[in-house]
C-alpha cells in the first residue's frame, strides 16, 4: 500500500514536470507524425514488393514507428536523473524512507504515458491513411510496447546514475540507438536483408518486439512471434527495473 502510494506520488511529480515542459509534448507528437508524413511516402513504391503485401505498406510500417516512439519515450529518462543528481534532489529523496523502486517507477510510468499518448495519436492518423485497425491486437501491442518503454526508461535511468555525466550518457544512448533500431528492422523489415543481417537481428531484443508488433498489428494475436515478444520484453523490463533500482540504491555511495 505504502509502495503504491509512493509510486503514485513520484509518478504525479514526474507527470507535472513533463506537463510544464510543453516542448517535450510537442516534439513527442510531431516526431512520429513526421515519420508518417515524410518516410511513409517513400515506401509507397514498395507496395506489393517483397515484405510489403499489396495495400499493406502502413500495416508493416506503423508498428515500427510505434516501436520507435516507445524506445524514444524511454531512453530520455537518464537526462533528468543526472540533473537531479547535480541539484541534490535525489540525495534528498534518498534520505527519506521512500522505496527506490517506487522512485524509479515514477519515471517509468510517466514515460509509458509519454509513449502511449503520441502512440495513440499516430495510430489514429495512420488509420486515416489506410492502416488497418485490429482492436485486440492493438491493445496487446500497446501493452507490449509499454514493456519496451519500461525497459528503456529504467536502463536510461540506471545509465544516468552510473555515468553521472550528460556527455557520457549522450554518447552511450546515441551509440546504441542506431544499431539497435536498424537491427530490429523497425523502418524496413530485416527479411529484406542478407542472411548475416538477419542473424545479427536475432541477437537484438528489440527485434522480437518489432516482430511481435507487426503480428499484433495484423490482428494475429496467438502467434509464436507474439509469445516470444512478450517473453523477451517482459524479461528485459524486469532486468532493467532490477538494475535501475540497484543503481538508485548505490548511485550516491
Amino acid at each position, binding site marked *: 500500500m505504502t509502495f503504491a502510494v509512493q509510486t503514485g506520488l513520484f509518478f504525479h511529480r514526474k507527470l507535472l514536470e513533463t506537463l510544464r515542459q510543453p516542448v517535450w509534448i510537442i516534439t513527442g507528437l510531431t516526431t512520429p507524425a513526421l515519420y508518417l508524413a515524410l518516410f511513409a511516402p517513400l515506401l509507397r513504391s514498395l507496395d506489393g514488393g517483397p515484405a510489403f503485401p499489396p495495400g499493406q505498406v502502413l500495416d508493416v510500417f506503423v508498428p515500427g514507428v510505434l516501436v520507435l516512439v516507445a524506445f524514444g519515450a524511454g531512453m530520455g529518462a537518464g537526462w533528468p536523473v543526472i540533473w537531479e543528481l547535480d*541539484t541534490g534532489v*535525489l540525495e534528498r529523496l534518498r*534520505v527519506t*524512507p521512500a522505496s527506490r523502486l517506487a522512485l524509479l517507477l515514477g519515471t517509468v510510468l510517466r514515460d509509458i504515458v509519454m509513449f502511449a499518448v503520441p502512440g495513440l495519436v499516430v495510430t489514429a492518423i495512420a488509420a486515416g491513411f489506410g492502416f488497418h485497425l485490429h482492436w485486440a491486437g492493438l491493445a496487446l501491442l500497446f501493452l507490449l510496447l509499454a514493456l519496451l518503454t519500461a525497459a528503456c526508461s529504467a536502463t536510461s535511468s540506471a545509465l544516468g546514475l552510473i555515468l553521472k555525466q550528460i556527455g557520457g550518457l549522450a554518447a552511450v544512448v546515441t551509440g546504441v540507438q542506431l544499431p539497435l533500431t536498424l537491427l530490429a528492422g523497425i523502418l524496413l523489415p530485416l527479411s529484406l536483408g542478407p542472411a548475416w543481417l538477419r542473424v545479427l537481428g536475432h541477437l537484438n531484443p528489440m527485434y522480437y518486439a518489432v516482430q511481435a508488433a507487426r503480428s499484433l498489428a495484423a490482428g494475429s494475436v496467438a502467434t509464436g512471434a507474439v509469445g516470444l515478444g512478450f517473453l523477451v520484453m517482459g524479461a528485459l523490463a524486469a532486468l532493467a527495473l532490477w538494475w535501475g533500482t540497484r543503481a538508485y540504491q548505490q548511485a550516491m555511495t
Partner: protein
Amino acid sequence: MSSPPLPPPAPASAAVAISGLRKSFRVAGQTIEAVSGIDLTVAAGEIFGLLGPNGAGKTTTLRILTTLLPADGGSAHVAGADVLAEPAVVRRRIGYVSQLGGADKSATGRENLLLAGRLYGLSAADATRRCDELAEVFDLGQLLTRSVRTYSGGQRRRLEVALGIMHRPRVLFLDEPTTGLDPQNRANLWDQLRGLRAAGTTICLTTHYLDEADQLCDRVAIVDHGRVIALGTPDQLKRRYSADTITVTPDVTASALPALAGELADATSAEASVTENGVISLTVTDQTPAMAAVFGVLAGRGVNVLAASVGQPSLDDVFLRETGRSLRDAGGPESGRAAGADAAREVAA
C-alpha cells in the same frame, strides 16, 4: 548503617553516538582517508557543530550519519538506531538538508513540501496542515505557489530547511546551511534553528564559518584531516587553547618600557612582550580583572595611556594551535591532502 549504593547515572540520551568511524575513497589509484576514526556524542536537544576547512571530512561524516554512505569501520547510532544495521529506521527519524539543498526547482514550494511530507507517511491532510505551519515559521506564505526556480537564495534555503523538518525529525542534519547566504538571511536562519532546538529538535550541522560555530552552536567539534582535533563548548575551547590579549601603548620613553612591562606582567601574572613601536602586549587568562590591574599600575605611576585594546580569542586560535594553520587559509589548493579528500567527495557525490 551504610546507605545503599547509588544507581549508576542514567546515560544522557544521545541523539548521535559515533565511535571509531572510518571512511576512505579511492581516487585516481590513491586511497584517501576522508574520515580517520571519529568519536563523538551529540546530546539530545543541542545544536552541535562540526567545524573545519573544506575537505576535513565533515560532509563525509554527515553522509554516513544520514545513511547515504556506508562507513568502512566503526559504529554510528542516530536517534536510537544503528545507521548501518537499521538505515530505514534512521531515515524515518532524521531530516537532512544537504549543501545543494535539493529542492525540486521545476515544482512549486508547496508541491515540494507536500511530497516530502507524504513520503514520510503523513496523510494528505496532515501534510497540508504541516505545510501551512512551516510556511508561517519560515515566512514562505506567498512564495509557496510559485516555482522554486523563481526563489532567491535565502528563500530557497528556508524552503530547504522546511523540507528537512516536514516530518518533525528527532535529529536534523544540515551541511553548510548558511554558505552563500547574506548576513541578514544567515541571522534569520540561525534564529530559526534556535527555534527548532527550543522545540526539542537536535541539530547537527557542519560549517567552515568560525562565527557560526561560535555563536550558534552549543558544542563544537573541530575537524581536520578526518579527525576531531578539539571538542567542547565554544567558550571552553577558546579558554583552553587560547587566552585574551591586552595591548596598551603607554606614554613613556622607550627606555622605560621594559621595566613597565615587567611590572604589568607581575600585576596580572601574565606574560608580557614589548613591540618596537612601543606597545606592551599581555597574554592573560581572564581579561576583566587583568584590565583593572593594568590600569591600576599605570594610574599609580601617573602614566598616560595613548591607546589600549582587548583581543578576544577566537576558534581560529584553537585551530591554529592544533594544526599550525589558520582555518581561514586551510583547505585551499595548497593543502594537498584536503584537496584530495575534497576530490574524493566530488567523486562520491
